[in-house]
């Protein structure tokens, strides 16, 4: 088991990679002195996808996300679509699938083309429409040339729900569903950056999936016990976090993990495991075994969930670890530590 609790004096890229290093940084620097969450609910200490605050018999879920992808336009999407999807999906991962409102702050570099900004806003509007969300407030800043690379977006979102789904509710015997093919976003970005010329197009999966998650919750109800979107660090990072917080081990069946053939080919070429590649339109859903088939069928009927699959199960042994059954043998799945690629979302 590899554990690194120390935070270096200089903040390296790995602290933004969504893995163990980032969690250590939040614990040591950001959380220090904040004290416990002031209200009944889920606060920063839980390091979940968002926070939840009890209001009467409802939960107010709130989340925020900054977006710094390079390049800002990539096959399958752009930074605008990413910003809306990221925040809507973080709300959905808490069980809040009806966003009340979003905010959008934009920071631009001096000289940024107006036409590019307009294009980003077209994407923002489209993604809002798909999610059934709207932007109610924002902020605009311009920084000097060279003080920022192009464009940074920050979005926050709020939503109400009756039941919060944490990422820590797994028990031995529970099954894990992924809502579709993995690795599409990260490999699309990588192909552009490395100028890979591959047969078949690599397209990001970036999409708001709150409506897809809603169908899963409708089918599974209280049997849905944990959710997480496998963004930076991919499925591996998300599963490690779920296993650690839930106090279970997770056994993944590699052959059941849906991966498009062109993504697999690009991964093989670059020596990358699709399980550590980022996704922006997928969810990992932990579900009690007796409800798994119902949830799976409901997901597969939704256009964004046709490739959904049960990929793993929770076990009592190896608490906090993820084991990969390759079909030929079993091994530990490592949690990615550094940045596979910086500025990916």
């Amino acid at each position, binding site marked *: *088991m*590899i554990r*690194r609790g120390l935070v270096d004096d200089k903040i*390296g890229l*790995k602290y933004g990679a969504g893995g163990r290093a980032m969690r250590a940084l939040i614990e040591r620097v950001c959380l220090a002195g904040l004290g416990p969450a002031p209200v009944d609910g889920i606060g920063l200490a839980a390091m979940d996808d968002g926070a939840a605050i009890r209001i009467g018999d409802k939960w107010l879920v709130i989340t925020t996300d900054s977006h710094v992808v390079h390049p800002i336009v990539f096959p399958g999407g752009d930074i605008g679509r990413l910003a809306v999807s990221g925040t809507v999906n973080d709300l959905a991962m808490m069980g809040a699938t009806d966003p009340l409102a979003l905010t959008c702050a934009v920071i631009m570099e001096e000289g940024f083309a107006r036409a590019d900004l307009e294009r980003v806003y077209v994407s923002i509007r489209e993604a809002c429409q798909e999610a059934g969300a709207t932007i109610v407030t924002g902020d605009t800043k311009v920084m000097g040339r060279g003080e920022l690379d192009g464009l940074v977006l920050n979005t926050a979102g709020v939503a109400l729900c009756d039941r919060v789904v944490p990422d820590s509710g797994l028990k031995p015997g529970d099954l894990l569903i992924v809502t579709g*093919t993995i690795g599409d976003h990260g490999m699309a970005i990588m192909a552009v950056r490395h100028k890979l010329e591959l047969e078949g197009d690599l397209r990001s999966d970036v999409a708001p999936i709150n409506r897809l998650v809603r169908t899963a919750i409708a089918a599974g109800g209280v049997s849905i016990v944990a959710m997480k979107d496998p963004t930076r660090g991919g499925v591996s990072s998300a599963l490690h976090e779920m296993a650690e917080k839930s106090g279970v*081990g997770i*056994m993944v069946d590699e*052959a059941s993990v*849906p*991966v*498009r*053939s062109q993504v*697999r080919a690009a991964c093989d070429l670059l*020596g990358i495991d699709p399980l550590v590649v980022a996704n922006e339109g997928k969810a990992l859903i932990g579900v009690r075994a007796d409800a798994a088939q119902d949830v799976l069928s409901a997901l597969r009927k939704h256009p964004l969930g*046709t*490739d959904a*699959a049960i990929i793993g199960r929770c*076990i009592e*042994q*190896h608490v906090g*670890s993820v*084991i*990969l*059954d*390759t*079909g*030929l*043998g*079993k*091994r*530990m*799945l*490592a949690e990615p*530590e*550094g940045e596979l690629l910086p500025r990916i979302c």
Partner: protein
Amino acid sequence: MTHVPGAERDQAVSELKFRDPVRARGLVDALAQRVAELGRSPVSVMHVCGSHEQAIAKFGLRSTFPRGLNVIMGPGCPVCITDTPEVDEGVVLARQGIHIATYGDMVRVPGTSMSLADAQAEGAKIHVIYSAAQAVELARATTDEVVFFATGFETTAVATAAVVLGGLPPNLSILSAHKYIPPVMEIVAEMPQTKVEGFLAAGHAATITGSAVFEPFVARHHLPVVVAGFEPLDILAGLVKLVELIRDRTPQVVNMFPRCVTRDGNRRAQDQLWKVFRPTGGRWRGIAHVPNGNLRLRDEFAAIDARRRFPIDLASLWDHAPAALVQSCICGDIMAGLSAPTDCKLFGQECTPEKPVGACMVSSEGACKIWHQYGGHPDLGGEA
């Protein structure tokens, strides 16, 4: 758009017949049976190739090996066994302002006081290349002196030999740190504390050398050698055969990779290799002095030998003491098969792929890097 990744996957899997899980299970059972038939345990065998360890780790094969079988990774990573003074030679040349072209993993290997990456941070011109031919292209694009810091076993040495025989641009010379595998197997076999009872030899190197290259070794040491490929079934079948040979006390060379390897190998490549290089004794990092283990340019090629073209004053690096952490590194014992990466107290703690202390954590063929990449503890035994 519709796509059926499940069906695509099934098709892809059926094409990969050397990864067939059903046949793999058959071989795993056969392996357990052969080891049981030995009537004693553990039996230790060694592979001498980073690509074998990669495949064993990636596919989780170690979890299927019977308890009584100890599969050790030997000195099979060319980056790991490149000795500190060889790295130092590259660093000294780089600090003289000479362009250094080398393979990616070499850049971060620690020397006495710095790596090529450290030299680069100070302004040295270091170029990562993927083939010997790229070094030639690089030299043609400049009038500055370029040195190709050439590392790797006989497989890559052949590529270096080919470009040398093709004629180099006048501003290109070679700093050879190439190594030759067969002699180091003798060293391991002769180590007093060795437990190794047989070797799994690397299929790609044997494609060049031919399986016959191991025959004198078998005759001298009475240890079996099985040449194996790199797919899961290749490795499992190779191990089954190796344990059979140990069980039957019939040491011999068996080629289990006949789709690529012949007894005589690639004669033309061998001719080129030995026309350019001569074997000479030298240290392998962490292992020992290996007689005939280093490949150096023959005298006919003195004009393109960087060691003869430039003065290389290694003493200039020695006013820096080596870092304290390095003293606790057990890369040598790991490569000699005496320890596992998890026996090292630095592993995954002070020594990680981001901040490597030893060479085994730098290279993608290094045992420590591979174990770290695949979860840090590859032996799950029967627990999971």
